[in-house]
């Protein structure tokens, strides 16, 4: 982690030498801890790349308040207690000018206690748990859609298609529970009858009994609040037990290329929820993709995009406030309404995200096509889902 900071510093110095106008003042230092090792390593690293690209782009465009921007990033090893220590260090020892959020809800939940204590604005691009933003915290801002909205598209399409019954299953963890309760509420609101609901423990990979019960109820829709492992296992066993709803959608995991690589033709027709796709027609999307691929040699994930967009939102807030003062930046971020390559940003008085929309995609011929909301759709839904042996 030292090395990262040092490289950032060297890069800063080199860039500063080439650009004398912005070099006159010391750079604005933005601190963050990210999960660069540990169980979230891959996702945290993608977010890190988003931050790095944002740092570069902001500096290319003349910096912030006439000064260069420089990220100070440490590795929290995917552990909330480590993140707490690192944010303390960033704020009290390194005396950074601003902070950005870490990766994941649990780490953000822990780190937010520190940033609140020191009244530091923290735009948290990768925290989707509603409760983090409903605890009376004043300085934390949300960028992505909350967990409750993940299955909104699936339920909406089902209701429009005149489907009547839905089964909701979810992993028994914070995020999945929230996604399932959001789906239940939406289903009720849209007049769908919830015929079955069940949670299963984390790490469960045998769904025989659960699916046997679902099959006997024969619902039109199966809405599953999943991660990757369980999404794959659930799908495989649905095929094995010939459970064949008219629509079947998952939350997390279904958007990964590995999902299709693993399931091949069995992934066809499955719906999934996504915070962001490179194909969505948002402003600046192409520039972001090109720059990202060129810089890092691979495609961005939504974690990269959210990191980049979160950093843009923060710098926009600073620009509008004309200062780094927490309270003035906070005012500006509360008022800000903007659209980045990640989608819309607008928050309520708690900093809770209101404008960003989840998209619903469907796997069709090996590709993800956005099918909802209509204004972003790149294809029509293929409906209903045919029997397993005809996919």
């Amino acid at each position, binding site marked *: 982690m030292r090395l990262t900071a040092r490289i950032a510093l060297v890069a800063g110095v080199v860039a500063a030498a080439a650009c004398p106008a912005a070099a006159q003042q010391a750079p604005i230092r933005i601190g963050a801890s990210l999960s660069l090792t540990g169980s979230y*390593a891959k996702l945290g690293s993608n977010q890190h790349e988003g931050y790095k690209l944002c740092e570069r782009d902001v500096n290319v465009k003349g910096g912030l308040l006439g000064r260069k921007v420089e990220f100070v990033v440490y590795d929290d090893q995917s552990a909330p207690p480590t993140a707490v220590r690192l944010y303390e260090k960033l704020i009290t020892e390194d005396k950074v000018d601003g902070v950005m959020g870490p990766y994941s809800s649990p780490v953000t939940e822990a780190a937010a206690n520190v940033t609140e204590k020191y009244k530091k604005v923290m735009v948290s691009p990768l925290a989707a748990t509603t409760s983090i933003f409903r605890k009376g915290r004043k300085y934390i801002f949300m960028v992505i859609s909350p967990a409750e909205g993940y299955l909104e598209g699936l339920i909406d399409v089902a209701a429009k298609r005149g489907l009547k019954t839905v089964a909701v299953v979810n992993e028994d963890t914070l995020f999945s529970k929230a996604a399932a309760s959001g789906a239940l509420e939406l289903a009720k609101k849209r007049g769908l009858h919830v015929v079955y609901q069940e949670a299963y*423990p984390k790490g469960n990979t045998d769904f*025989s*009994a659960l699916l*046997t019960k679902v099959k006997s109820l024969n619902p039109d829709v199966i809405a599953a609040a999943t991660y990757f492992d369980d999404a*794959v296992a659930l799908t495989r066993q649905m095929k*094995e037990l010939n459970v064949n709803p008219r629509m079947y959608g998952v939350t997390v995991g279904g958007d990964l290329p590995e999902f299709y690589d693993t*399931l091949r033709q069995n992934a066809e027709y499955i719906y999934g929820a996504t915070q962001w796709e490179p194909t969505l027609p948002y402003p600046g999307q192409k520039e972001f993709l090109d720059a990202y691929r060129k810089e890092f040699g691979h495609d961005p994930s939504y974690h990269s995009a959210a990191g980049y967009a979160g950093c843009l939102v923060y710098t926009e807030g600073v620009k509008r406030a004309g200062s780094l003062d927490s309270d003035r930046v906070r005012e500006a971020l509360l008022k800000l309404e903007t659209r980045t390559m990640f989608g819309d940003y607008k928050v309520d008085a708690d900093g809770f995200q209101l404008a960003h929309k989840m998209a619903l995609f469907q796997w069709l011929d090996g590709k993800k096509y956005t099918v909802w909301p209509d204004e972003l759709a790149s294809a029509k839904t293929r409906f209903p889902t045919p029997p397993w042996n005809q996919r």
Partner: protein
Amino acid sequence: MLGQVVVSGILAGALYAMVALGLALIFGVMRVINIAHGPLLMLGAYTTFFIYQALGLNPYLTVPITMLVLFILGALLQRTLVYRVVDAPELSSLLLTFGISIALVNLAQLAFTSNLRTVEYVTGSYTLGPLAFSKSRLIAFVVAAALAGLVFLFLQRTRLGKAIRATSQSREVAMVCGVDVQRIHRITFGIAAALAGAGGALVSVIVAIQPEMGQIWTFKSFLVIVLGGAGNYPGALLGGVLLGLVEQLASLFLTTQLSEAVAYILLVLILLVRPTGLLGGRQT
């Protein structure tokens, strides 16, 4: 519905039984509870994955190779580390194998990253009337049952197997009779690791492979050998099938969330009522 759930339970049970048999062997022979048993299964799954990826070999054909790799690894672990704690109090062996377990998982994370890997080979099922037999789980059942059977024959019939059982009954007497106990320990640990590896190979076709996939198998195997009677090898088979059935039936009649709880409540009850397990402990 009930029939389907019983089928699923028995299919899962054979795999539990085979993997747990490895744990039972180590415990029976050395009185060591190998916490690293699940992570060994994880390494087996990775071995299959890399062979499958590099050579495009049918994952079921990798089972012998994976078992050989894990046998060597297991014997090495015994030779370098575990032999030091065989005579020590049980807490020492728990701590040591716990440490090995953490090391293996973290090394796997470093070497293989935590990216999810999958071996996609068979999907779908054979149907028999209203019952569906998942292809991948049915094959796992057959292979696991066959391997468990082979290990039994080996233990019952061969000279080496008899030496293992003798060591398990009384190390001193075995030694007096000229059995090289250290060698028996290495072979036992190797066989146990090979069984975990075979489990990993079979599981890799069913679920995604990642460094933390193994731990749950340590717990399940432990549950199985306590149910069946620690150190009692036929008991491990009974315990495996029993665990499979209990899990499935509990999720049918209660909820999937409670199925694990039910299995562990059963564990506590058996420890209270019949601490030697259903078939009694440590008979060979």
